[in-house]
């Protein structure tokens, strides 16, 4: 059915059409949605038609595009909001200062920190280098627009197996090795150039990510409390100043692209939706924005991300109880000939909107001029809650904000899928010795040393990184659990940052898996000596219009909310990324948690590697036979539906024992037990310290040897306690702390009655250090 007659070309010296929706058939409505690239559903198109019929006029193309942006899944969370409200929005405490583009939490009496994580999955799947780079750009602006200085970046990444044979690579999909290389290079070249350390993250591999890799990026910032700003104008009469990069045709329909499933044609059709990053525009933008803000010249600000100007103008005005008028002619462009709708929805990078009182405009413009950053007043706020746009003197847009920002909200059907759920247990056969299994686990791509990635990122710029991502004796590096930043010059208070995700567990049991992710974030933070303080999450799931995917989402969020709520840890910001599917199917349901913790005195922090001969080794937390989704079961092709659960009381008690033990100086090294279980945690501690340990696991209870070695039960840590200080380890009835051995020698020896494994530390190190270099070095 043709739609050509429905577009009414307007008499204007530029491209402008009205769209005659009033007489459209349903088919034509959908055709218009498709042609405009907005991806609106039939019901949504009908609602738009209703609105304009009531007002007796046709929408312009600018208006239709704008509604498409504002009502996309990416912008209005239409499928997820109902669950988020039920399970996570409610966790509140007095430490939450704001929930804007980034969450803002209290750091100390005078300072606040901001945190946020989001996804940049689809752009990275199509163009890994640019997609990953602009992901950083976007998250930096989210933190910056709260008035906070970005001080740390976090990059959790998920790819298909690196050794995937080309024959198994689907049409139109890029090889995981290429994607990993491109994404890491993108993060490196952008993150290093803007001078913000990349301090945490993670790397996961699974077949399900072959068609749709996940690239999440988080950022943490710090601010004087008096410099914290809301994403809102102060009132009518504010001047809207657009600062940063110029606007071009890159990144048009990015949000729509993010709100649909990837297809074989994504490469050719959606390449233009990937924006182009410019770190050397962003770096001075940060300087200038912070300088203007610290001088009190900025009333409020907001970043231009998904939806570009079309989202930012309405949202920043409405948040301040106003409307706005904008002259699109004034927007600085990269090239000539953009139609007004393109200017309005372009997602070109490195741009922010500042709301400035009229008397301060010149001072703001001067600051930006010094940094050679374009800054242009493009409009102002008005009393009426509507947005009007002009282009070359012609009014091209006039909408009520209540309508534009009242995106639909759905309570879509969700139910567990019966097919594909394996309930039957398949147990690996018991062995006499587990030396080889241990080495195999250490070399697993999901466990092995990530130094190839980490050392390409500058994790020390700003010189505040106290506890670093790689820890150990010089030349013998192992993984840490959390990174600690000392953000305030005059204070020894620290901010710990940790990343957690376990898509394998969530895939089998989303509720318990979701709980486990929060548990892991908390135990990572505690292991460095911090008290968990806030979380932000990026929830990467499949198509929410499919009931089983939405069920996974709901269950995960329920589990996460339960543990976070139980510990009174707020989640002041977050991001949902749906439609992570390719023709091969959905990705594993992947919630990523970025946790922040407070360290009272950074000089008390500990690292994960073993420190000294003769010290005692403890296991804190109860080990159970919960082998579902464990690395051990995965490498032995076994299965169990029983995924580790979380006992919130035991978690709280464990965090307290570890944090207090570290503050007292009794614990000198600590590592959380996660992928690969106790055996792997101990191995990593030995590798970093270049020293062995003699360990007897009889005290853990009556279980098979392999369960003791490789169970991934939650809320557990290995702690090295200084010789003679064992009694200073705090006690708590709600969890256990068992002494299992002594540090020393050059082998890691594990017994439980009989010897289970006895491996030289140098062999452990070789198994742990080499795999990634062999695959991608």
């Amino acid at each position: 059915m043709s739609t050509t007659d429905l577009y009414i070309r307007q008499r204007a010296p530029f491209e402008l059409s009205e769209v005659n929706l009033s007489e459209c058939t349903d088919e034509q409505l959908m055709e218009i949605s498709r042609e405009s690239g907005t991806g609106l559903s039939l019901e949504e198109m009908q609602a738009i038609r209703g609105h304009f019929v009531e007002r007796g006029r046709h929408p312009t193309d600018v208006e239709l595009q704008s509604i498409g942006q504002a009502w996309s899944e990416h912008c209005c969370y239409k499928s997820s909001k109902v669950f988020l409200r039920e399970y996570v929005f409610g966790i509140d405490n007095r430490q939450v200062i704001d929930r804007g583009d980034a969450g803002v939490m209290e750091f100390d009496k005078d300072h606040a920190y901001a945190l946020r994580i989001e996804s940049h999955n689809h752009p990275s799947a199509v163009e890994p280098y640019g997609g990953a780079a602009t992901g950083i750009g976007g998250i930096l602006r989210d933190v910056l627009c709260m008035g906070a200085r970005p001080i740390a970046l976090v990059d959790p990444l998920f790819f298909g197996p690196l050794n995937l044979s080309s024959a198994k690579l689907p049409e139109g999909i890029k090889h995981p090795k290429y994607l990993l290389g491109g994404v890491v290079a993108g993060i490196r070249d952008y993150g290093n150039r803007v001078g913000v350390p990349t301090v945490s993250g993670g790397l996961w591999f699974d077949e399900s990510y072959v068609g749709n890799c996940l690239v999440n990026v988080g950022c943490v910032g710090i601010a004087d409390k008096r410099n914290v700003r809301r994403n809102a104008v102060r009132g009518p009469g504010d001047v809207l100043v657009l600062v940063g990069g110029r606007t071009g045709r890159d990144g048009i329909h990015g949000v729509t692209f993010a709100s649909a499933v990837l297809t074989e044609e994504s490469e050719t059709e959606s390449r233009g939706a990937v924006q182009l990053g410019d770190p050397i525009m962003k770096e001075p933008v940060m300087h200038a924005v912070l300088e203007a803000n610290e001088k009190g010249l900025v009333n409020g600000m907001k970043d231009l991300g998904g939806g570009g100007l079309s989202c930012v103008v309405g949202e920043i005005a409405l948040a301040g109880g106003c409307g706005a008028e904008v002259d699109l002619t004034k927007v600085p462009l990269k090239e000539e000939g953009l139609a007004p709708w393109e200017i309005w929805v372009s997602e070109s990078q490195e741009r922010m909107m500042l709301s400035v009182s009229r008397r301060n405009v010149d001072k703001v413009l001067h600051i930006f001029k010094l940094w050679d950053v374009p800054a242009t007043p493009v409009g102002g706020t008005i009393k009426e809650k509507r947005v009007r746009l002009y282009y070359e003197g012609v009014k091209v847009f006039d909408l009520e904000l209540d309508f534009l920002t009242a995106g639909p909200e759905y309570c879509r059907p969700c139910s567990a899928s019966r097919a594909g759920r394996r309930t039957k247990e398949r147990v690996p056969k018991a062995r006499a010795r587990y030396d080889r299994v241990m080495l195999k686990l250490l070399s697993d791509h999901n466990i092995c040393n990530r130094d190839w990635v980490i050392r390409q990122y500058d994790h020390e710029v700003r010189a505040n990184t106290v506890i670093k991502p790689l820890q150990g004796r010089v030349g013998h590096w192992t993984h840490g659990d959390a990174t600690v930043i000392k953000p305030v010059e005059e204070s020894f208070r620290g901010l710990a940052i940790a990343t957690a995700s376990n898509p394998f567990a969530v895939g089998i049991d989303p509720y318990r898996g979701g709980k486990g992710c929060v548990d892991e974030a908390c135990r990572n933070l505690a292991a460095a000596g911090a008290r968990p303080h806030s979380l932000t999450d990026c929830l990467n799931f499949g198509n929410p219009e499919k009931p089983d995917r939405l069920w996974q989402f709901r269950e995960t969020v329920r589990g996460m909310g339960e543990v976070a709520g139980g510990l009174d840890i707020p989640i002041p910001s977050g991001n949902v990324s749906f439609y992570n599917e390719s023709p091969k199917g959905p990705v594993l349901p992947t919630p990523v948690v970025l946790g922040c913790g407070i360290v009272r005195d950074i000089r008390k922090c500990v690292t994960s590697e073993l420190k000294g001969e003769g010290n005692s080794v403890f296991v804190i937390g109860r080990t159970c036979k919960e082998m579902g989704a464990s690395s051990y079961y995965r490498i032995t092709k076994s299965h169990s539906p029983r995924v580790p659960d979380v006992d919130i009381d035991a978690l709280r008690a464990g965090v307290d024992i570890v944090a207090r033990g570290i503050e007292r100086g009794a614990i000198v090294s600590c590592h959380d037990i996660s992928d690969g279980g106790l055996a792997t945690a101990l191995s990593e501690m030995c590798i970093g310290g270049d020293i062995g340990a003699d360990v007897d696991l009889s005290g853990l209870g009556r279980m098979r040897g392999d369960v003791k070695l490789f169970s991934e039960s939650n809320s557990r840590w290995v702690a090295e306690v200084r010789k003679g200080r064992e009694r200073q380890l705090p006690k708590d009835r709600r969890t256990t702390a068992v002494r299992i051995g002594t540090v020393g020698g050059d082998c890691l020896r594990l017994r439980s009655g009989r010897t289970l494994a006895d491996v030289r530390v140098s062999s452990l190190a070789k198994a742990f250090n080499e795999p990634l270099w062999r695959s991608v070095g």
Partner: protein
Amino acid sequence: MKISDARVCVLRIEGTNCEEESFQCFRRLGAKPEKVHLKQLTGTDVTSDEKRSLPDYHILVIPGGFSAGDYVRAGAILAARLKSRLSQDLAEFVREGKPVLGICNGFQVLVETGLLPATSGVMAAVPEAVLGTNDSARFECRPTLLKKVNRGLCVFTSIISDDRISLIPSAHAEGKLMFPLDREKGMLRELDDNDQIVFKYVDPRGRLAGYPWCPNGSTGNIAGLCNRDGNVFGLMPHPERVFFRFTHPDWPRSPDGAGDGRPVFESVLRYISKKL
């Protein structure tokens, strides 16, 4: 002069991003550092309040980062801007014996401007060396061990004892010091004769070693150089990142004492307190 009167110009443009920590090092030691945009020195787009003059400072610091993005050769763009507008001021600054410190990108800038190694004169007309892409072809952020080999000329290392090994971390993609191949041997000999070599990358036992101890494949394992008078000093590793012990990568193993980078800043302040 008193250290509290020592004015330190920490130069910045878009993409220099280690200025804050460099500034703090001097502030903590009681000097008067200031972050100064290049345009403040050249008088472009600034008010009269914002204008600054290079001769008013006692120390010039070119901090690390990616000045102007470093999309050409690292340091080349900032060096070109400096040379086109401030050549005279710079040469005069150095001639007066005032110290100039270039860290990482700053070192690259000093080599590109011809202020280092400057085996003859103050400022070579064309660069005599280059800091090329690392052998690994990647950005390398890793702890490096530096042995002080300078025999006393360099004013930034005077209080560091001879042969001491300092842990000063590196973070760069272009840090491989290279000379014109036909002149390499001669240049190395000359630099050694002039006592212009300051730091070399070594392993924990103090021996010259390959990757990863030397993160870039630098000629002669050279990590830092000074000019013939010892008052211009450039190095790839970042002493400002280890001013305190608690930013060392392995500090929980030995938490006491100052950071290994601190003596670099103390040395130069001691120098100007005596000489200027």
